[in-house]
Structures are given as C-alpha cells and as structure tokens.
C-alpha cells in the first residue's frame, strides 16, 4: 500500500465567531487513497474539508489555528495563492452545479481560465477529462448541448470532469452522491475507485455504507473533534472508541 502522506493536518482549530467548529484536529491524509469523513450533522466534517482548499475564507468571522501542510507549506498562511491552491485541491459539491453552458464549455472553462487557448489543446483536455470521469461515451456526440440537459448523475460526473481538466492533485467531495439515485451513485462510486489511482480523494458522506465501499481510511468526527481515524475495515468492524461504535451501529442519541 502507498503510505505517502499528501496532506498533514496538525492541531487544527477553527472558530466561527465564538463557536469552535474544529477542535485540535490532527490527521495525515494518504496520497492516492480515498479518505472518508463521517459523522453526524454539525460534527465539523464539511468545515474540515472546506479548510483544505480555504473555502471557509468566504465565511465572515472565521479564525483558524494550527497547520495544514500540503507540498511542504502551510496552506493556512496568509501568503498562500488561493487560486492556485484550489486548482490543485478541487472540490465537488453535494448538488451538481454545472455552468449554464455546453458540456464542452463546462470542461474547457478551467483550462481556459488558466491560459489554454488553442482549440486542439482544449479538445484534447475535454476528451481526456470526460473519459477520466467516465462520461465520454455518453456525451461524445453532443458536446455542444447544454450541460443542464444531462441527468443528475451525468451532471455530477461532468463537475468531476471539469475539476480534472485543471489537473488537480487532490479531489474533495462533499456528499457527491447524496442527491443521486442508486445507479448514478454506484457510477460515482466506481469512478472514485478508479480516480484514486491518479488522485488523492477526500469524501464527506452521511452514507456509512458508501464510506465502507469506497474509502481506504475513514475518519469519524463528532462535535468538532476527530474521534477516530483508522483503516475503513477497522473502523466499521472494530471501532476503538465507544462514540464511534454508537455512531456506526446507529445507536446515537
């Protein structure tokens, strides 16, 4: 197994005003593996992944302490180039959010912003990204159609293709399949499994079976704390902490 560390988080604390949403979280995210974050609503898991590409900067009154080390630098430092960071660490959201543009333009958007202009280069990156997102076969004959005409599952894979087009290293996925039906969900899960060969993936999910199916490692968050972080099979078969046990067996509360 590849044990290289992609992101190392040390003593991360985060406050929204006076409310502390993350409490002293330390975690090493393995490179080219899928890491699932689970926990009840409000446990801090979404806040945590948003920290990894500085999305929380968009919220007022946020204060963070600690370190998020990525490629040798602390991305929480004020001099971090956030645009470059978000190119390398991209995010897929719960609800597919394609631009109201053609399928082609959705995927070509990022490379264009980053300076790719030549048509044949864009053609190449669009095809490669759609193939990597397992969508090419379904859309190759209608690349100029509006992305909004795709099904929910196709839209979500298009959003993943749009992300892949800018050649990121890390994919953050916040409940990427929760708005999809079981068939579209299983396509996304298969895709996640394929993508981990080339990317490091961190997925937030409410669906524990999904974490069990796709993740190499799983982290359980509760009340802003990282309670337990272990290989997925260990976390679901023999959790060490009573709180994890109660959560995964559904006996919380």
């Amino acid at each position: 197994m590849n044990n290289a560390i992609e992101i190392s988080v040390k003593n991360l604390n985060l406050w929204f005003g006076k409310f502390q949403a993350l409490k002293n979280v330390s975690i090493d995210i393995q490179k080219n593996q899928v890491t699932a974050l689970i926990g009840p609503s409000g446990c801090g898991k979404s806040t945590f992944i948003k920290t990894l590409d500085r999305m929380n900067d968009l919220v007022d009154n946020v204060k963070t302490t600690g370190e998020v080390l990525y490629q040798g630098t602390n991305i929480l430092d004020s001099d971090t180039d956030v645009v470059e960071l978000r190119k390398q660490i991209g995010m897929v959201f719960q609800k597919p959010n394609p631009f109201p543009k053609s399928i082609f333009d959705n995927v070509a958007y990022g490379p264009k912003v980053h300076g790719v202009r030549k048509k044949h280069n864009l053609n190449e990156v669009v095809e490669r990204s759609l193939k990597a997102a397992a969508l090419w076969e379904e859309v190759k004959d209608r690349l100029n159609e509006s992305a909004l005409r795709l099904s929910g599952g196709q839209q979500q894979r298009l959003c993943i293709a749009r992300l892949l087009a800018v050649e990121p290293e890390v994919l953050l996925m916040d409940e990427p399949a929760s708005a999809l039906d079981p068939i579209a969900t299983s396509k996304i899960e298969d895709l996640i499994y394929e993508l981990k060969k080339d990317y490091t993936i961190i997925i937030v999910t409410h669906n524990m079976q999904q974490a069990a199916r796709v993740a190499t490692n799983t982290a359980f968050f509760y009340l802003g704390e990282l309670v337990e972080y272990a290989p997925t099979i260990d976390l679901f078969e023999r959790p060490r902490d009573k709180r994890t046990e109660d959560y995964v067996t559904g006996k919380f509360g």
Partner: protein
Amino acid sequence: MARTRYVRKLKELRQNVMDMGALTSQSVQDVLTALETSDAALAERVIANDDVIDNFDRKIEAQCMSLLALEQPMAKDLRIIATSLKMITDLERIGDFVVDIAEEVVTMAKPIRIPVSATKFNELVTEVKSMVADSIETYAEGNVQKARRFEGRDDRIDFLYKHIVENMVKALAQGQCSTETVADVASLLYIIRYLERIADHAVNIGNRVCYMEEGDRRYLK
C-alpha cells in the same frame, strides 16, 4: 437509544442462539447419560430432538441474513451476527455428533463392557460436557477470559483421546476382548472420536466469542 426495533431484533437473535446452545448442551448431557446408564430409550429421544436443533439452525440463519440484508449492521453488532451465523453451524454439527453417539448407544450391549480403565474415559466425558456448556455460557456472557481457556482444555481432550484409543487398540491386539466385547469397543472408538470432535466445536465457539468481543480476526484462524 435509537433503532429500538433493530436492537430488539439483535437481542432476539442472541436469545435464540443461547436457546439453541442450551438445547444442544442438554442433548450432549443426555446422550452421555444414555451411554453411562445404557438407556436406549433416552438415546432415541435424543435422536428425535435433533430436528429441533436443526430447526433452530435454519431459523437463526434466516434471522442473520435478514439483519445483514436489511439493517447494515456495523462494529460489534456485525460481529455478533457473524459469530452467531458461524456458531450455529458448530452447534448443529455438535447435534449431529450427538445423534451419531446416540445411534451407537442404541446398538451397544447393556451394560457396556469395556476392556480399559474407566477413569480417563469418564474424565473425557465430563470435560466434553463441561466444555459444551461453558462455550454457550461464554457467548451469553461475552466472557473472553473463559473462552481463552478452551485451547488449553482441548489439549487435555486430545491427550485423553489418544490415550484411550491406544489402550483400546492395545487391548484388542492383546486379545483381551471377548467376541461380545469387540463390538462395544468398536462403538466406543467411534464415540470417543465424536467426543473429541465435539470438543473442537466448543473450541471454535470460544474463539468466535473472543472475536465477537474484541474484533481480532486472528481468533478466526
């Protein structure tokens, strides 16, 4: 406590496994009483009782499958179900060995004539009865300390088994058996083999209980 219906279903599962265990343990006690007292009628009743054990096996397997399919159990719940599912096979096999012993008892002479000292044989019988009863108790109590002692107890069973077989074979070889006794000796050779196998299943149950409680798969070797 959330998931009350699920928690109740798990509790029912454990109770059924304990009931099946109690029944199997009782069958072991009864068949060995039938052997000691040459009670063919009791042996016949034990044989008939095996259907009840088999029914439990099927019923509990269905319960486990339904919990697995419908409730997505995790952590200790998952281990309880996995342990129960495997353990009922051990209990069912013990039940089958009990039937095998009972069938021998029915055909043996009354009283049974054996050419070797009864001390070791009695020890084997007593210890096997006790191991089966204890294995059910370890499951009911989740008693890992007790379960861990099974391997050591099984070593003693293996020793007794070997010792008795050697002595019986020696007695046969030395012509100490009359024509009438030979048949009983042959039956007893089978019976002690069945007892040794029953003890192995009790050891399996002990190991499964350790896994159920601690989650360490090394117990499932």
